[in-house]
């Protein structure tokens, strides 16, 4: 973990690790002296939690819906299709988003011609940034997110369903009493892990979606580091921010794990 010490030094590869001077908390101060940083951290947290509240449950719901499909061929087809977007890189997804949402794009043409509305500046309105980013994540990753849940479901013993049918339980009741509990531990684990990374919010996607107009609502910690640190090979600054992210993540994971245990779940460790 010696690399973490870089955060407290003015690291220069030519002076070497030992000879680079200690600067104490200089880079942490630099980070918090910047008025932007509070806004940036707030943006990061907002985007992460919006993802947890919206994108995460959608994967579960999608998995449950897929699980209810009886026709195996149709089910296989649907499964394959919902995984597809995951394979596209963010460059492509953002590119397509722009084609759809630009002021002369498909959506605005539609709004203007059919509903007789004014064009909506989707790409430059700061208020639109977060919803669009969340929608992109839902579109791209929710299908892929079903994989683990479906794998967990495949382990459910068929006897349980048989017994439930004997007892006259409806499909909905079966879902509530058998399927969901089978997913519970997977959901808890994934949530805890996700909490550990709330300070990450998809660098590439955000970076590509940013423009001068939505900067204030879209700039997140990762892009901030990129603008301030990486472009100028400031290794110490980048390490300091990484360390800060890790500490926040650690605190959240430990808390979430405690909470999970209190509610009778097994937790991570």
């Amino acid at each position, binding site marked *: *973990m010696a*690399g973490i010490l870089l955060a407290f030094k003015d690291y220069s590869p030519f002076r070497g690790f030992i000879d680079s001077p200690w600067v104490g908390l200089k880079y942490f101060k630099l980070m918090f002296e910047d008025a932007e940083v509070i806004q940036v951290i707030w943006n990061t947290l907002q985007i992460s939690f919006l993802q947890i509240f919206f994108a995460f449950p959608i994967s579960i719901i999608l998995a449950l*819906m897929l*699980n*209810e*499909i*009886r026709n*195996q061929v149709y089910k*296989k*087809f*649907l*499964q*394959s*299709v*919902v995984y*597809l*977007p*995951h*394979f*596209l*890189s963010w*460059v*492509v997804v953002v590119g*397509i988003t722009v*084609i759809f949402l630009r002021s*002369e794009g*498909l959506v605005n043409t539609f709004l203007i011609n059919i509903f007789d509305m004014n064009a909506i500046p989707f790409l430059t309105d700061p208020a639109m940034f977060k919803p669009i980013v969340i929608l992109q994540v839902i*579109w791209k990753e929710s*299908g892929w997110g079903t*994989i*683990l849940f*479906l*794998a*967990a*479901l*495949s*382990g*459910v013993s*068929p006897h349980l*369903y*048989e017994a439930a049918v004997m007892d006259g339980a*409806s*499909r909905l009741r079966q879902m509530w009493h058998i399927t969901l509990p089978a997913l519970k*531990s*997977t959901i808890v*684990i*994934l949530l805890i*892990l996700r909490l*550990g*990374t709330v300070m990450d919010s998809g660098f590439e996607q955000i970076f590509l979606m940013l423009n001068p107009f939505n900067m204030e609502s879209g700039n997140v910690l990762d892009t901030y580091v990129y603008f301030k640190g990486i472009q100028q090979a400031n*290794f110490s600054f*980048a390490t300091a921010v*990484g360390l800060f992210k*890790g500490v926040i*993540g*650690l605190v959240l*994971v430990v808390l979430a794990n405690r909470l999970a245990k209190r509610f009778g779940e*097994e937790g*991570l*460790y």
Partner: protein
Amino acid sequence: MFKSTGRERVMEVINNIILLLIALTMLFPFFYIFSVSFSSVSDVLNSEFLLWPKEWVTDAYSYILGSDQFIRSLFVTVYITVVGTFVNLVFTSTMAYTLTRNIIGQRTIMFLVLFTILFSAGMIPTYMIVKETGLLNSLWALIIPVAISPFNLIIMTQFFKGIPEELTEAALIDGANDIQIFSKIILPLSKPALAAFGLFYAVGHWNSYFTGVLYLNDPAKWPIQVILRQIVIVNEPNAALGGHAAMLEAIPPPETVQMAAILLATLPILIVYPFLQKHFAKGVMLGSVKG
């Protein structure tokens, strides 16, 4: 079979319809990519939105396949994906199994694993390790450093914990050792999980891009994503920051070529999926047969 009430039938139909709509929104961009890749450059330039090629052309494909680089990189990626995924599964599953046994310090180890997720080393320390271990410019540099994803390890451990203990206990009484239990009981029961993780890892390898450029000096060894990247994102110089001199140097290839490259680089990994799906479906099928 189940007997469904009328209300449940309605719900089923609604469920089907919603899923179909979801599937369509997900297919749509692929449709677009497909159409553009088979269109002529001027058609693409002159229409806002192409849903179907006005005239079918394969120029973009012959352009891409015209150089050895693309095909060669495709093979490199296939190799990394196959070997890498195998290595991943072996290491992750053995370690996950060990973590389910009650060994001393298990919680500590788990916590350490978690630690690695939170405090990931930056690019530079990792690069140094790869360099020191002599893996630089070897394809193994793309496999060994990512042999175990701590994230997948944790989840796989959970899956293994879900296997009823009676089974392993019975085996222990029969005198089986850990290796036998692992290979005869745990692995066969975890096929769907293994398939899922296999898919995760495989896609990870398939899409891995930056490690390729970082660790490999020889362009002949570059995986397909590096090539794709060069075609799709031409990293434009930021003119605001004085990149004027390079402004005209960095003009990217036409959109048709970009789209064709995306399709060509994505198709092979999509083909893998049906093979894995067999294993996914098994558990569920068992259910419906008996039900």
